C-alpha cells in the first residue's frame, strides 16, 4: 500500500539536515517530484474520462478498441443537456448579480467604517463560509420547502446566495481598502451624494475587484453541488447535480455517456477558468502580493 499513498514526502524541507547551496538540490528534486507525480495522476484522472467519452468500447485494455463521438449526442439527448445548461447559466448569472448587489455595499461599510458590533457582524458573515454546506443546507432546504421556495429555481438561487454573499464581502473588502478615502472625500466636497460617490467614483475604481469576485462566485456556483442538490427540483438541476444523478444511477446508462457529460461539464468550467485567470491572479486572493521586490 505504501506505493500508492500519495505525496509521501509531506514534511517540510526544514527537516533535512544538509547545508544550503549543496542541499537545496535534493530538496528541490523531491518537491518537484511530488508536484510532477501529482500532476501525472491528475492528468490520468482527467484523461481517462476524456478517452472513455470518445471510446466505442473499453473494457480490460489500455485504450478503447475504437473511437466515436456518438456518446456526446446520446448524452445531449438522454440528459436533456441543453435545458440543464440553460438552467445552470441562469442560476449562475442570477447568483452573481444578486450577491454583488448585496455584498459590495456591505463590503464598503465593513472596509471603511468602524462601529459598535462590527466584529460580531463580521463573524456572522464569516460563518456561512466556515460551516459545511450540508450543515446549514438541510435546515435551509427545510425552511425553503416550508415557504414553497425550494424545488424550483428560486430555491436554488437563494441557497447558492448563502455562501456567495459572504464570499463577495470577503474578497471585496481588501480591494476597497486599497482605494484612497481622500478620493471619496474630494467627491463629497464637490457635492456628490452617497449614491453618486458609489456610481461615479467607487464603481469604476472597483471594476477589477468586482470582476474578480464575480468570476470566483460564478465558478463556485457552477461547481456547487451540495446546496443545489438539496434544493433543486427535477427541472431546476444544474449541470453538477444532473451529473451526480446520472452517475449514481449508472447501471442504467452507458458509462461513456456519463463520461461525455462529465467532459462537457469540465470544458464549461475550463472556459470559465481561462476567463477568470485573465482577471484574477489566484495567489492574490488572500494578501496583496508584493511580487518579487527589486534586488
Amino acid at each position: 500500500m505504501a506505493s500508492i499513498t500519495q505525496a509521501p514526502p509531506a514534511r517540510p524541507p526544514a527537516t533535512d539536515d544538509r547545508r544550503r547551496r549543496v542541499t537545496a538540490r535534493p530538496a528541490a528534486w523531491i518537491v518537484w517530484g511530488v508536484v510532477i507525480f501529482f500532476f501525472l495522476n491528475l492528468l490520468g484522472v482527467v484523461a481517462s474520462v476524456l478517452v472513455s467519452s470518445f471510446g466505442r468500447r473499453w473494457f480490460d485494455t489500455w485504450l478503447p478498441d475504437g473511437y466515436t463521438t456518438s456518446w456526446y449526442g446520446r448524452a445531449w439527448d438522454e440528459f436533456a443537456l441543453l435545458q440543464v445548461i440553460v438552467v445552470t447559466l441562469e442560476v449562475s448569472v442570477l447568483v452573481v448579480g444578486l450577491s454583488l448587489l448585496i455584498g459590495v455595499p456591505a463590503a464598503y461599510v465593513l472596509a471603511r467604517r468602524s462601529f459598535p458590533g462590527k466584529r460580531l457582524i463580521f463573524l456572522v458573515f464569516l460563518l456561512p463560509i466556515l460551516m459545511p454546506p450540508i450543515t446549514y443546507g438541510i435546515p435551509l432546504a427545510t425552511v425553503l420547502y416550508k415557504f414553497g421556495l425550494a424545488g424550483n429555481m428560486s430555491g436554488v438561487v437563494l441557497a447558492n446566495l448563502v455562501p456567495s454573499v459572504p464570499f463577495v464581502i470577503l474578497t471585496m473588502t481588501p480591494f476597497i481598502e486599497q482605494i484612497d478615502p481622500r478620493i471619496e472625500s474630494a467627491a463629497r466636497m464637490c457635492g456628490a451624494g452617497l449614491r453618486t460617490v458609489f456610481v461615479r467614483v467607487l464603481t469604476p475604481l472597483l471594476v477589477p475587484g468586482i470582476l474578480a469576485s464575480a468570476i470566483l462566485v460564478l465558478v463556485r456556483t457552477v461547481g456547487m453541488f451540495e446546496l443545489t442538490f438539496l434544493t433543486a427540483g427535477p427541472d431546476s438541476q444544474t449541470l453538477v447535480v444532473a451529473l451526480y444523478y446520472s452517475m449514481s444511477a449508472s447501471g442504467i446508462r452507458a458509462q461513456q455517456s456519463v463520461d461525455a457529460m462529465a467532459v462537457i461539464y469540465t470544458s464549461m468550467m475550463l472556459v470559465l477558468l481561462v476567463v477568470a485567470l485573465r482577471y484574477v491572479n489566484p495567489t492574490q486572493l488572500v494578501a496583496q502580493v508584493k511580487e518579487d521586490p527589486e534586488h
Partner: protein
Amino acid sequence: MSAAGPGRPSAHWRHRLAERGIDRQLILLVPALVFVIALFLYPFFYGLSLSFQPTDGGPFSDYARFFSDAYERGTIWITLRIALPAALLNVLAAVPIAYRMRGRFRGKRLVTTLLVVPITLGTVLTAQGLLNFLGPTGWFNRILLATHLVDEPVRLTHNYWGVFFSLVITGFPFAFLLVLSYLSGIDPTLERAAATLGADWRRRFTRITLPLLMPGLATTFCLTFVLAFSVFPSAVLVGNPAGETRVISLAAYQAAYEQYDYPYASAIAMIMGFVELVVIAVVLAARSRFYTGATGGKG
C-alpha cells in the same frame, strides 16, 4: 462633547450616534444583514429548534437516538478519520512546495494555473475520473501490474482510499494557493536580513518564515478541513457509502431525503456543525498563540 449646543432633539441623537460611528451610511449594510439573518441564521435556529421536537419522544430523544446507535455514532469518527488526515496532508504538502515556488521563475503562472484546474473539476468529475483511473482495470493499476510492482490490482476505489484521494485532488490545490499567497505576503527582506546576520536556511525557515506563516497555515487548515469535512458526493460515488465511508453528511442526507425525518436530520446536521466547530475552535485557539501582526508584505 455633549456641548453641541441647543439643537433640535432629532439632530441631537443623530449627532450622538454619529459620534459613535452610527450614521446613515450603515444602511448599506442592511441588505446583507437581512439576507444573512433570513437565509442563514433563521434556518439555522429553525433547524436547531426542530431538532428538539422529534416525531416521538422527549426533546433530546433524537440526539439520544443518534448517540445510542453505533452505526450512526460511528459516522462522526469515520468523517474525522477521512477529513483530518486529508486536510493535514494537504496543508503540510503545500508548505514546502509553496516555499520553493514563492519567488519568480519561468512558468510560475502556468503551474499555478494548472493547480487551479482541480478546483474547477469539482467533486463529481473527480469521482468519475478516479473511478476510471484508479479502478481495477484503470491505467494506474495497469502501470503497477506492468512494472510488476504488484501481482494483482490494488483496490483503490469504493473504499477509504478513493474518498481520500478525491479530497487530496480537490483540496491540495486550494491549500497550495492559500499557502502561496500567505507566503508571498511575508516581506522577503526579513529573511534577507536574517541571512545577512548569518542564519542558514534552516534557521531562517524555522525562526522567521514559519512563525510568520503559522496563522496563515491555521486558517488554511480550517478552510481545507471544512471542505473535507462536508465530503458528500465523493463518499457516495468513489467510497463505500454503506460502510467504510458512511460519513455524517450522508447520514443527515438519508434522514432528510430518504426517511423524511426532518427533526432527526436537523439533529444530525447540528451535531455535524458542532463537531466541525470544535475542531476549528481548537485550531483557532492554537492560532491565537502565534504571532498575528502584519507580515510586512501587504502593500
